[in-house]
């Protein structure tokens, strides 16, 4: 206990030096936590955007649908399948879709587009479709109306309450044709979706395509994103070999690669940050050893064992590092929360790049507690490993040499 007291007193014998070291660790922890939270937050936001776009976290199709996306590869959407999916742990919601291509016409102009039959309420739970409404009202279950993407409406020169004509090929080759009033206009960030998608209630889509009770996919949402892969595997094994289960990462591999590339570059930045922390702490330790060389020699001379002296210096380093880390974590909490509530907004090329994917260039921080703990522990680990240096010096310390002025 007296060693602990002595080490604490020793820290404050040179207040400026100790404050500089603690400040270096303090700022390192804040930087490290903010960088890590920002990275997690950006990617989390990216994934959330993707999911709320269109894909959902997990999709279930009839086996082979992803390779050949035609109505004939649809499956019977009965309650039995839905129940099986919902029984899988971590699944929070399921919604069916019936998707196919059709010619979409406004009279003078015709364009190819994607017609998506949805369960309006459930779809909104997962992909927040209602939030994308810029004009009109959202769909109801039995509506024989449609929601049209803003870009597509512009191309077809259509306005709210105009009628759109759809012509295409239905289930098993039947003719699919119909005309529907536009109940609402939705806007997507993704130019691809904004230029070609049209939504209608799934029952109306079944009528249009002659695909009674059929669905091309189930869109699933999950509670814990970290367990995405295992959840997808559980759904697959629950449904059997007639179905294929795909995560958003499989559906949009380009986004996944983008995240991985960004994660790697962030690792380099963090590596440089840790290196700076190392130099800061090591510089202080070197100063301590030079400054107190005589005293350490004297302590060995009067009978203090080197092991005890090493423990004393270790405790001093530990107190300094832990104080810096704890203060850093405490201060980084409000900083990270602030940046979560008022996220950074990018402009210029970065914003354009993100808009290509259809996302706003907004970078919120993640408030996941693990970021604070992990970064705090990493900096603490770095500090404690470096504090082994004085131990090495003490083991080699010769009291006579050390006490030479």
């Amino acid at each position, binding site marked *: 206990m*007296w060693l602990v007291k*002595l080490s604490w*007193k*020793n820290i*404050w*014998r040179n207040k400026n030096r100790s404050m500089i070291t603690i400040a270096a660790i303090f700022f390192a922890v804040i930087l490290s936590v903010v960088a890590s939270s920002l990275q997690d937050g950006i990617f989390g936001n990216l994934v959330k955007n993707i999911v709320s776009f269109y894909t959902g976290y997990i999709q279930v199709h009839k086996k082979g649908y992803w390779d050949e996306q035609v109505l004939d590869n649809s499956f019977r959407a009965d309650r039995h399948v839905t129940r099986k999916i919902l029984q899988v742990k971590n699944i929070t919601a399921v919604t069916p879709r019936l998707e196919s291509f059709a010619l979409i016409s406004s009279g003078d102009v015709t364009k190819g587009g994607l017609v998506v039959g949805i369960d309006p309420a459930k779809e909104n739970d997962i992909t927040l479709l209602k939030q994308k409404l810029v004009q009109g009202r959202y769909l109801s279950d039995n509506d024989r109306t449609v929601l049209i993407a803003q870009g597509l409406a512009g191309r077809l020169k259509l306005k709210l309450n105009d009628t759109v004509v759809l012509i295409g090929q239905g289930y098993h080759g039947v003719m699919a044709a119909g005309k529907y009033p536009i109940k609402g206009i939705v806007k997507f960030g993704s130019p691809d979706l904004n230029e070609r998608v049209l939504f209608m209630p799934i029952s109306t889509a079944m009528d249009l395509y002659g695909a009674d009770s059929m669905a091309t996919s189930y869109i699933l949402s999950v509670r814990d994103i970290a367990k995405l892969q295992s959840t997808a595997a559980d759904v697959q094994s629950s449904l059997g070999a007639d179905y294929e289960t795909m995560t958003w990462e499989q559906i949009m591999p380009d986004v996944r690669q983008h995240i991985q590339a960004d994660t790697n570059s962030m690792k380099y930045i963090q590596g440089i940050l840790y290196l700076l922390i190392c130099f800061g702490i090591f510089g202080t330790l070197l100063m301590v050893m030079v400054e107190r060389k*005589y*005293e350490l020699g*004297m302590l*060995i*001379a*009067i*009978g*203090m*064992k*080197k092991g*005890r002296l090493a423990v004393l210096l270790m405790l001093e380093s530990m107190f300094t590092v832990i104080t810096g880390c704890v203060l850093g974590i405490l201060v980084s909490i409000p900083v990270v929360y602030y940046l979560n509530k008022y996220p950074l907004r990018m402009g210029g090329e970065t914003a354009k790049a993100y808009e290509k994917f259809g996302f706003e260039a907004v970078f919120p921080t993640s408030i996941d507690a693990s970021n604070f703990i992990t970064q705090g522990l990493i900096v603490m680990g770095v500090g404690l490993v470096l504090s082994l240096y004085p131990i090495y010096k003490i083991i080699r310390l010769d*009291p*006579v040499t050390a*006490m030479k002025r």
Partner: protein
Amino acid sequence: MQRYMKIVANIDKEPVNKETVIDAHNISKVYNPDTIPVYAVNNVHLHLLKGEFTALVGPSGSGKTTLLNLIGGLDKPDSGNIYINGVDITQLSSGELIDFRLKNIGFVFQSFNLIPVLTAKENVEFIMLLQGAGRSERDDRIKQLFRQIQLEDKLDSRPAQLSGGQQQRVAVARALASKPRFVLADEPTANLDSQSASNLLDIMAKLNKEEDITFLFSTHDQRVIDRARRVVRLVDGKIVSDSAAVATEHA
């Protein structure tokens, strides 16, 4: 002649049949043995009895500090043996030597070397904590030592709040806290003014007399030499005179 008489008079007061505390045989310490050998200590014999108050004198570079380091187990001789209370410390490992020093030797340094963050009391207590002494034992010893060094009112003062003389008195108390076999003091009065040096010497002489503690000083200071009961003179690493030998011859 007057100084010689003083030394002889002091030696006459030395009690007889005392136990041997330090017995150094033929010890030598050579620097640069392979190139130009420099004998810091050259074939020295030194025999100290319990209760001796001995000054090791000589010009700068004569080997006083090296000899003290060898006797104190801080350094190892290149040849010869040093027996402290019958233990040949030249055969001990560096870890064993640290333990041996803690239990047997008290050190007083020229520049006090108190731990600046500890109070006077804590500096003295430090040695006893290293020894693992219990609280009541520590408290009793501290009380006794601070009475002896006449600093009972400075127990809670930090070194920076004490004068040089007071700091050196606390250093003496620290050296004695472990109840050592003997105390080695390397130029203890070098950084003190006359009054402080005189007070310190009074205290050390009193401790020597009352508690029979063996002191070995290295010094240039005539005031210390005058108070010593035995003076060993070192030149170029060799003992050129030893008042104990003179006294023996006289006897």
